[in-house]
């Protein structure tokens, strides 16, 4: 009942409502990122047969190297189950449903981490004869080869309108004027090899030449057999894979074609970056809650000497500048993993929760309902967590969005300073790449900066509306 009124009142805040939708949108983008950016098509018809290449790779650790991605890819399937449980089950059944879904999620996640899948398109022995090689391939391996060829070609064609301008500038500078796309690079390489082989007359050279020409012809033929290609909606690149491209090219093409310094696709990295931010925000705040609530609750409920000691400790803990501590820990431990960062943010972020919970428990413990509980002979711990806790939820809830905001900012800031996880797609890391070439190449800095700002502002607006909702005294 309480939550219904809260939701109703929250919904009445126009700004808060929209911000809430934006946050939800970011979450959905994070969860369903592979459908938005990946180099594998979602659905394809090849030679009259349907295939779902993307789904073959979702849990393959050679393709998604970060455990974080595997976790979110699983969440793609368990998330609807969570939502259904929330919508259609009631009370205790709902709790059982949630528990079941989380258990499935965790169990599968651990399974995929400890028992990695095999490569769906593992390389096969190459006999040096293309027809024979094709013969030996499985149906999916064949499809994979054709897909790669077609996609590279399509990418190249999409960039062709900008080729002329690029070529003219490059010619002036005396550099290679052809587009640095994967397709073009592979083609040039092939051409030179063909020329090289044609000038030789040995038998092996001729066989090699035949192999290349056969492959080329076969690919060209087969690419017409591809029908109903449904690609991920926004970007055709996997964020961890080389997408071709060059810094110089970036000046001539629209934002969504930009490549990062390490020749990976910017757009897909941006989409997958949502995952990092959300994980850090939620995990570290969860950790902070886990530490902060019990400590605050005990201090507030029992008071006395225990409370004095805890308050002093809180004070001490708060006096540590978080950013300094973060930098120090990362520097001395020589470890830049995202989970260490999350851990440190959580460990240095619990004090504010403790403070609020302590204050709330202090207030509530002398109220008559608590006295009644005592009179009924309930145990202290039962009173604390079953009776007082629900009344203390409101201040925690108002603090939550701002804490998440702070955690996301800390992580991004740390990555921005060059101490983020390597090879991660965290927005901070992307911004750091833009910073190293600042201000000449600042076009790499702004897209992640803008996305980060939108997310943070949205969370802040949600937090503000939530505070208004839960704390009607402030409205006046």
């Amino acid at each position: 009942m309480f939550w219904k009124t809260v939701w109703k009142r929250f919904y009445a805040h126009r700004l808060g409502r929209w911000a809430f939708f934006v946050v939800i949108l970011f979450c959905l983008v994070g969860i369903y990122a592979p459908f938005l950016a990946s180099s594998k098509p979602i659905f394809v018809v090849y030679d009259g047969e349907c295939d779902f290449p993307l789904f073959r790779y979702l849990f393959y650790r050679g393709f998604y190297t970060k455990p974080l991605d595997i976790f979110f890819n699983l969440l793609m399937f368990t998330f609807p189950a969570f939502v259904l449980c929330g919508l259609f089950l009631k009370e205790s059944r709902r709790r059982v449903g949630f528990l079941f879904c989380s258990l499935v999620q965790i169990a599968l996640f651990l399974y995929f981490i400890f028992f990695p899948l095999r490569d769906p398109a593992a390389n096969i022995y190459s006999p040096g004869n293309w027809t024979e090689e094709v013969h030996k391939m499985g149906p999916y391996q064949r499809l994979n080869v054709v897909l790669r060829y077609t996609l590279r070609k399509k990418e190249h064609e999409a960039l062709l309108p900008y080729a002329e301008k690029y070529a003219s500038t490059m010619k002036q500078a005396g550099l290679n004027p052809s587009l640095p796309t994967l397709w073009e690079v592979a083609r040039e390489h092939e051409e030179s090899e063909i020329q090289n082989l044609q000038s030789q007359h040995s038998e092996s050279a001729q066989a090699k030449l035949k192999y290349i020409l056969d492959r080329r012809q076969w690919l060209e033929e087969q690419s017409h057999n591809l029908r109903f290609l449904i690609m991920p909606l926004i970007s055709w690149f996997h964020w961890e894979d080389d997408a071709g491209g060059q810094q110089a090219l970036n000046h001539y093409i629209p934002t969504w074609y930009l490549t990062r310094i390490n020749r990976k696709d910017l757009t897909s990295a941006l989409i997958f970056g949502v995952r990092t931010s959300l994980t850090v925000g939620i995990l570290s705040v969860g950790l902070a809650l886990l530490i902060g609530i019990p400590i605050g609750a005990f201090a507030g409920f029992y008071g006395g000497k225990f409370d004095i000691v805890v308050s002093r400790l809180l004070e001490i803990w708060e006096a540590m500048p978080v950013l300094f501590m973060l930098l120090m820990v990362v520097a001395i431990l020589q470890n830049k993993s995202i989970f260490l960062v999350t851990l440190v943010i959580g460990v240095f972020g619990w004090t504010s929760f403790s403070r609020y919970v302590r204050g709330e428990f202090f207030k509530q413990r002398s109220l008559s309902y608590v006295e009644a509980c005592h009179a009924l002979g309930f145990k202290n711990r039962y009173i604390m967590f079953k009776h007082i806790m629900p009344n203390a939820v409101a201040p925690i809830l108002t603090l939550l969005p701002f804490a998440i905001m702070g955690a996301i900012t800390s992580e991004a800031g740390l990555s921005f300073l060059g101490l983020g996880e390597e090879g991660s797609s965290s927005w901070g890391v992307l911004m750091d790449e833009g910073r190293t070439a600042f201000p000449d190449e600042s076009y790499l800095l702004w897209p992640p900066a803008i996305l980060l700002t939108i997310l943070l502002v949205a969370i802040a607006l949600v937090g503000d509306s939530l505070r208004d909702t839960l704390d009607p005294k402030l409205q006046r």
Partner: protein
Amino acid sequence: MITYITRRLLLLPITLFFIVLVNFIIINLAPGDPTTVSEITQEGATRQADRSMAFGSDFRYLQFREFYGLTLPIVLNLWPYTSAATVKQILWQLAHRKQSEKAPEMSVKDYDALRISFGDRSRFILPLLLGVIEDPKTDEKTRIMAVKFFIRGGTMQAYLGPNLSDEEKSYNRKVAKENQLLSTLQILPTDTPEDQTKKISALSKWYHENKEYYEFVPSAAKKTGMIFTDTRFFRYMSRVLRLDFGTMRNDANKTVVNEVTRRFKYSLTLSVLPMIMTFFLCQLFGFLMAYFRNRPPDFSLNVLFLVLYAVPIFVVAPFLIEKIALHYTFPFTNAPIPLSGFTSPESIYSKETSLQRLLDIAQHIFLPLLAIMYGSLAAQTRLSRTAVLEVLHQDYVRTARAKGLSTLEILFKHVGRNAGITIVTSIAGSLGVILGGSLIVEILFEIDGFGKFFYDAVVNRDYNVILFSTLAGSFLTLLGYLMADLAYTALDPRVTLE
């Protein structure tokens, strides 16, 4: 009041002690061996240093470990009591990479752990090592291993830092000569048996010559004392209590404390000035918002400040540099907006008059100040609005109005002062956050302050600077809290804080 302040001041060292303790724990978790440390470079690339024996290579890191006693056991040092049998056994294990005769080969990780811990221990067991070396029954592999550890244990650390006494200098000279000698005595794979015996006899000669001087065989009382004094904790604490934070990584003549405090003036300007400005501005906006309560100006300001509060500083600072400083000049003048530094280059700055200097600094720190200030301004203004609203509802404001005071008078005299109490506390308490913000601003605007110094130390792995800076940052934050409490009592006589 005075009792309160004294109590507060007494709490300060306790708090600092805890911070030092946290630092101690963190540096104890540091990876144990200089050669397995992966470097953090500015490009963010991890380079795994070559795996070599722990006796050479990254000399400076070894020095750091010696300096803070990281080569010692944590709380109790029982290493001098190691028995000869144990030494022999470990040496055999290291030489053959096996736990025992029949066991399979050790994993690299286990081997490294054993190697490092035994390397650290070797200093206390030199006589035993020499015994193993000179024992004709030892097999060759074990002997070579024992020689390596003997040399590791015999290599002493020199005194570092400026203002060394003559005694220390002569000690340093002696140590340098001996270390040089010892390093030539390392047994190489190309050595013939004759070379080996020669080297070993040289080692034994060196040992007997210096036995008394270095006390390789300590007396029983000394040995008992070492249990407590030759530990990480004791060594570290005694350093910290003497405020001895060592020297810079690159220059042994500069002490860390000097270098850091020298840069404080920039950082303090960049954090105290915004605090003062924030105080007045947020009061002003707080009044405005409270005055227009729940009407469009209030609403829009509220949202604006919320948005500003959410925008991270590392987005705003590049924005200010690229979109403002590169394209515009100061309003109404042709003076370009400086992009970096706290002042103009020394060559220009030293020729200016005082007034020009002031103007020069003001021009330089205009954008950095803006970047540092906007966040706390946004947060404090929203707080200020609530505070002002709360005061406006008090009875004494109604009384003041009833007795016919003008609005301005009410606002300044009655409301302003009372609302200010909340703001001052909150602003003074936010010193830690502002320091963190100024760190990023200093890096982006290339101001050679405390924050940038710290960051460079992090990038260059200058551990001494990192440890001291964290302590200094925490100390400043604590001072902020103290100031907040004092201001609270000063502004509000009702509060006794007892």
